[in-house]
């Protein structure tokens, strides 16, 4: 019988592609944010009084490029958007047909409040072992949220910022309640994903970082199925 890998080649390739693409998107996005650091709801807005949020100027050391340039930041943002969007598309299309797809399915016994309480307690004890599956329960919820909600929303809200895409797909404006609402969501979800990355890195550091990173490169070996 062929040895089962813990992470398939597709998962590993997508993971490292995203490390690069998402980092470029996020930090070039901060440069773009500096061009007009205010957020609005609805279709339009430009006056300070219309804004629901006034943003800080993000310092040059945390932006791509490392100085204020809206033109160059946009070029980086759109370059990284292609592998990000098509990587997600390929991953989501292949996932249901792969063994990994089952790891995201919530089992009936996981839907109880007791199961959730138990998993939260385990996390508080820094016990990250998965019980009876590749993911523990909080991990499942978080990955479902990121993979099926937040990442697709980033792409859709990003498309809504494009006047040409709005002409081609006017429903985008209806879904998000206008271009400036989409821009606000794009910004808020970007920071939510930043938070996810922090939690993700913290979990890796607390659960054997050398082994985790090595296995995300080599594939590792799947834990023996319980018999």
């Amino acid at each position, binding site marked *: 019988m062929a040895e089962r890998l813990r992470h398939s080649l597709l998962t590993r390739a997508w993971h490292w592609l995203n490390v690069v693409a998402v980092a470029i998107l996020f930090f070039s996005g901060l440069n773009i944010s500096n061009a007009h650091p205010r957020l609005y709801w609805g279709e339009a807005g430009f006056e300070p009084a219309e804004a629901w949020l006034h943003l800080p100027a993000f310092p040059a050391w945390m932006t791509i490029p490392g100085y204020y340039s809206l033109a160059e930041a946009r070029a980086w943002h*759109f370059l990284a958007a292609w592998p990000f969007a098509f990587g997600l598309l390929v991953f989501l299309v292949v996932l249901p047909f792969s063994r990994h797809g089952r790891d995201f399915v919530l089992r009936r016994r996981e839907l109880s409040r007791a199961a959730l309480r138990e998993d939260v307690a385990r996390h508080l004890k820094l016990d990250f072992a998965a019980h009876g599956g590749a993911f523990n329960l909080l991990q499942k919820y978080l990955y479902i949220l990121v993979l099926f909600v937040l990442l697709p929303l980033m792409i859709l809200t990003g498309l809504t910022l494009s006047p040409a895409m709005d002409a081609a797909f006017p429903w985008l404006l209806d879904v998000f309640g206008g271009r400036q609402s989409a821009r606000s969501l794009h910004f808020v979800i970007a920071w939510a994903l930043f938070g996810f990355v922090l939690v993700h890195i913290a979990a890796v550091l607390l659960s054997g970082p050398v082994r985790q990173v090595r296995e995300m490169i080599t594939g590792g070996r799947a834990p023996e199925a319980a018999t």
Partner: protein
Amino acid sequence: MIGRRGIVAGLLGGLVAGCTKVAQSGPGGRLLDAVEDWNRAVHRALTKRTALAREFAPAEISPTFRGNGTIQPDGFDYMMQQAAEFAGWRLAVDGLVERPLTLTLDQLKALPQRTQITRHDCVEGWSAIGQWTGPQLSRLLRLAGLRPEARYIVFHCADRLSGSPYYESIDLIDAFHPQTIVAHALNGAPLPVKNGAPLRLRVERQLGYKHAKYLQRIEAVASLRGIGGGKGGYWEDRGYQWYAGI
């Protein structure tokens, strides 16, 4: 010892420096430029040529319409025209056309007009909604008669930014789009100076910097080389994308 924070700062510094190096290298710079062509190709493939930008209700018009870039041209000729309320303003339509035109504002207003309430999206990120009125650019181009070798329409403006004349250009798909108009009115009144008086372009499926203000001359050309910095517009010559549908 390097702490975790040091490692994170180091990785980020490496990423920023790496991106800067890539952008400055020949192949890296070309890759960044190529993305604009992919975006345009996919947008054109996904969008019907005549797909309209959304038009809004009068109640959705922004209370004021922000002026950006030049908000008061400082040339002597422009100021004289402004003092005379643009009575002597002329719009030339020339270049690769059969019948070069010179039109007065009254002649432009006598043509069939299109009025549209649309959203203006600045590359910086803000938006404003306004009602624009003017003849379709396609009508002017048909009056002048484009020659077959014409590929782009160039817009020459009366204002200068940082000492260089402002100009812009679009392709024939956008030039003949029904919502591409030469506007002389905003919200039912003559264009304010900050918004491009007396004439500005509206090309609704692209970002704000394509909407050239203070229009003096519309020129049909076969190539954008040799005009300004050769990239097709004032901001394009300074690194911005020529295709501004995104």
